[in-house]
């Protein structure tokens, strides 16, 4: 059974702040969904290899040749918080 504590912890890992009512209904929702998903435990998959890629493609490479980059204007224009060619954020304390 999924606890509210776990839900708060997962929210922290996901960098989402949840209001108390959100913690409430998400705990309910997720518990229900996980309950359904536990259905999978019925299967014996001990001898089954996992599928990470559904197509049998391997070895896709790029040549080590320089392609044009964005100009600094094009790079930072997507941010409303650009400053002198940098992306600006509140001070990060290390």
């Amino acid at each position, binding site marked *: 059974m999924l606890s509210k504590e*776990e*839900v708060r912890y*997962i*929210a922290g*890992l*996901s*960098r*989402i*702040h*949840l*209001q108390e009512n*959100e913690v409430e209904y*998400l705990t309910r*929702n*997720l518990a*229900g*969904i*996980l309950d*359904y*998903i536990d*259905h*999978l*435990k019925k*299967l014996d*998959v001990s001898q*089954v*290899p*996992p*599928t*990470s*890629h*559904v*197509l049998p*493609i391997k070895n*896709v490479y*790029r040549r080590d040749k320089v392609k044009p980059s*964005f100009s600094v204007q*094009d790079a930072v*224009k*997507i*941010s*409303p*918080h650009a400053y002198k060619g940098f*992306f600006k*954020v*509140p*001070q*990060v*304390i290390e």
Partner: protein
Amino acid sequence: MNLNQLTAHELIDHLKSKKTTPSDIYTAVVKEIERLDPKVKAYLRLTKNKPAFDSNSRLDFPVPISIKDNICIKGEEITCASHILEGFHPSYNAAVIEKIQKCGGILVGQTNMDEFAFGSSTENSHFGPTRNPWNLECVPGGSSGGSAAAVAAHEAIWALGSDTGGSIRQPASFCGIVGLKPTYGRVSRYGLIAFASSLDQIGPLTKDVTDNSLLLNIIAGHDERDSTSADVSVPDYTKSLINDVKGLKIGIPKEYFIEGMDPQVKNAVGEAIEVLEKKGAIFKEVSLPHTEYAVATYYILATAEASSNLARFDGVRYGIRCQPKNSRKGSIVDLYEETRSVGFGKEAKRRIMLGTYALSSGYYEAYYVRAQKVRTLIKNDFDSVFKEFDAIVTPTSPTTAFRIGEKAEDPLAMYLSDIYTISANLAGIPAISLPCGFSKNGLPIGLQILAKPFAEEMLFRIAYSYEQSTPWHTKRVSINA
């Protein structure tokens, strides 16, 4: 009929015989959008950059096309129907947009969707739901509901959507049009804002099978910018529009005809099978024994990948940025948490949390790895069937379009409605949905055909044969605006 009510291939004939011009077609579409969209709400916005109609340009397909709002168009705003991306203008075009523009395609507008493609009804859009043109109280399906509704309402000639668990096929089914999810790797994902990277594909939503094959011709093909793009040559898909299914062996999976299935859907699909049988196709019951595990498998893998793909939406580089009134954990973490709390909708948060959980320490083996193994079993089910059969036929959805709000409070019920479409994404195989009838309430019913990897030609052949023997593709919706 108005220009906007024609198919792309009819319009191309008209253009060739100079009965009309690209400008007239575009104007007709825009006019219909102005007339109907206040009711249907298929569009989030028309493209800012209006087309320039140059009489000298040598264009192959100067037909307007509508794009789901998760495919990047340079210089146009893109939101994925989410608040968190508002104001973001990508500085590059998706591969499919490049291909469309190369053959003269005219971008009309960007269509509504479930936020980040999380949903089966387009009710999860931050900008409000789109309505089903056949019944404005009903959902158009999702997540490509905007594209499907636009095409069905003739507010679009044809459109692009994306399909991760059925998001092209199910809305196509609900809206009575044709929707194709190509084989994984058939169409480049470069420029598609990712939901689940190992499941996503861009595909065409069109008024008939012919248009669908034309549009796939344009967008398919290897792209060196997408490592998962298949280096397989693109045939001329229109050559597979053969009205003949004699001798084709088609399987009917017994696990797909279940309790809770709308009997009208069952009948319509049954009748469709009869039509094809009369034309010489051979049907046999087959088994896809791991079908019952598909939804659970999907909701672990897809949400896990999504939780990672959506980590970049954090307010640092683009989109909105929020800070709480009172500091909680320190300024940068606060920025992340507040932006994502304010920016993401309910379903997005739900899926991110579920995905994060499935990947987290202590649960990774039990959930994610286990789901990957079940994925292998599901894929193997299809591989076995396709050894003997040319295709598989199923309903696209267990029901017709449900009412807006009907499933909103029950996420699990919503997830279970994807039962027929999800397996194709897990196995990476191509699948098409086309109309096969109407319910007593006048809501469209969809028939789904599946084939083995890179066998879109088989899908088109069967679909075309069925379509040409039935009247569904000629039925036009009429909405009182």
